[in-house]
């Protein structure tokens, strides 16, 4: 028994180390390639010059430094944040709802964000807050408002049964999608912006500068850290709400907190990337199938794997058909789906729901 526990600890450290290295490798790779390819050593020296007292002679052009620091890095870091947030939210929702099809969008965040986004485009207001325009703020608010609505619609007599919440989520999502489609079909202003609506719906990492990253980073890091506090509780939720209650979990309180946390992470991701699909579904499943279902490992491992996955997907989206950019959501789906099928078919720890 003691041996197994030691193995578990070593496994935790090993897996996190491995995924951490993969994440850093993907960061470097994604910084190096793009419309202009910049050699990795140069990137490393530039970065060291920036953060520390190093003073490497510039073997690169000034424009390359601008590309790295003003264009590529914010986007790459945006990708890490989006991936970590969505994968963590996916773990939270799958664990809480005990539903294999659960993803960060399952209870209406996506429809709410899309509707908020659409309405914001309609409004003739130019507003900026902490580097965010009205549009991402509306997407963020729309996602959170929808979850709040769904949660309260499903609430009966001090309890929020999961099945009611899933049903309320489906209904509210459909309604919001319908309103969005209605708005698009009747307003010229939206038709003019159809491309940006489309790009939002497909997912497109659009962090344009450090200001947005500076706001989203603490949200995502805070969210991912808080999620780790619920690891034991999520393990207990594997037995269902009743079983979790028998193990001393305050079920309704935890459910609300976990939902709020997952929704906040999702909303943060959506505000800088639109609706990137598949990450929140496939990364938690892949990590669970590869390393087991214990949330103490699953949560941090999924955050790292999700970050690396989106960064690589975004690199492919930028470079594969350059100069045309594919929505990153298309890439995550094209990589994610076959990978998921492979894992399902070839891992001994197959699913039994």
């Amino acid at each position, binding site marked *: 028994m003691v041996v197994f526990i030691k193995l578990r600890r070593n496994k935790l450290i090993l897996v996190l180390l491995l995924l951490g290295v993969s994440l850093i490798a993907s960061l470097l790779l994604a910084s190096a390639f793009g419309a202009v390819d910049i050699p990795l050593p140069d990137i490393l020296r530039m970065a060291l010059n920036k953060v520390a007292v190093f003073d490497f002679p510039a073997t690169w052009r000034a424009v390359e430094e601008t590309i790295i620091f003003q264009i590529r890095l914010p986007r790459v870091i945006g990708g890490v944040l989006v991936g970590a947030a969505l994968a963590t939210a996916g773990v939270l929702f799958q664990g809480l709802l005990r539903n294999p099809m659960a993803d960060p969008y399952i209870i209406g965040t996506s429809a709410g964000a899309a509707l908020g986004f659409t309405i914001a485009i309609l409004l003739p207001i130019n507003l900026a807050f902490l580097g965010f325009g009205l549009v991402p703020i509306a997407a963020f608010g729309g996602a959170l408002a929808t979850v709040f609505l769904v949660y309260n619609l499903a609430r009966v007599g001090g309890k929020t049964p999961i099945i009611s919440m899933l049903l309320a989520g489906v209904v509210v999502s459909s309604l919001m999608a319908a309103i969005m489609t209605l708005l698009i079909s009747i307003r010229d202003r939206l038709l003019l912006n159809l491309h940006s609506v489309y790009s939002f719906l497909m997912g497109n990492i659009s962090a344009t500068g450090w200001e947005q990253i500076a706001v989203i980073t603490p949200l995502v890091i805070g969210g991912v850290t808080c999620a780790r506090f619920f690891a034991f509780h999520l393990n207990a939720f594997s037995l269902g709400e009743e079983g979790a209650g028998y*193990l*001393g979990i305050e079920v309704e309180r935890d459910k609300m907190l976990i939902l709020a946390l997952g929704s906040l992470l999702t909303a943060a991701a959506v505000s800088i990337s639109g609706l990137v699909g598949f990450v929140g579904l496939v990364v938690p499943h892949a990590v669970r199938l590869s390393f087991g279902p214990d949330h103490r490992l699953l949560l941090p491992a999924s955050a790292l794997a999700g970050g690396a996955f989106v960064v690589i997907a975004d690199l492919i989206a930028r470079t594969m058909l350059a100069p045309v950019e594919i929505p990153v959501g298309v890439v995550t789906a094209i990589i994610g789906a076959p990978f998921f099928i492979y894992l399902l078919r070839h891992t001994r720890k197959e699913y039994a729901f």
Partner: protein
Amino acid sequence: MTGLEVRQVYFSYLDGLVLHNINLSVKAGEMVGLLGPNGSGKTTLIKLASGILKPTQGEIRLDGSSLRQLSRRFIARHIAVVPQQFHVPFAFTASEIVMLGRTPFLRPLSEENETDRRLVNNALELVGIKELAQRRFDELSGGERQKVILAMALAQQPKLLLLDEPTVHLDIAHQIEILELVRSLNVGQGLTVIAAMHDLNLAALYFDRLILLKEGRVWADGTPGQVLTEAKISEVFSASVRVEPHPLTGVPHIVVMPKGK
């Protein structure tokens, strides 16, 4: 130690009254079986005793303090529950499931310590499933799963063990095994046991005290000999049976009389 006290408890779900003025006192170290037809309120009473349902009226006291005043975490350190079945959607091993029994003792970021591991180990050993420790829970048979859940409950180090028809889906060998085990914990370690039972004969064999429920009320409460009479069984279950003494132990043994024979 006063054990569990149920005082004038009424309970209703949204669609109607399920329990009606229940008064019970279960002392520490007792082994009590709850009997009654489907829908008589056995499961509801177990859930009320575990604190996950709250009485509509009245109160339930654990060692003198009302369950309403106690946190879930505190209750889970004293009361463990074995339900009919658990469905676990993820690929946990049996020992990971048993470790879940330590949940009420763990802090959010703390790791399980030596004591937790020892208790999990003991529980696996006590239930006799050490060899299943690294097997996947969802690949075990129904009987094995039920033993894992029992081990999980024991890892909680409960003073009171509640079981909701723990043998309902099991074959006769596993039913006996589970009940023998619970009985030995009751006798050997003074564990207080309250179990909803559907099999009257097994209940008569393994429990000292039986409580018969009918339509949410206590219909009879006493030793198997006092509770399992032909008259009471016919009143409560509307079934015609004959009660004979068990050939070995002398407790009531219910013989079903098929209609028309």
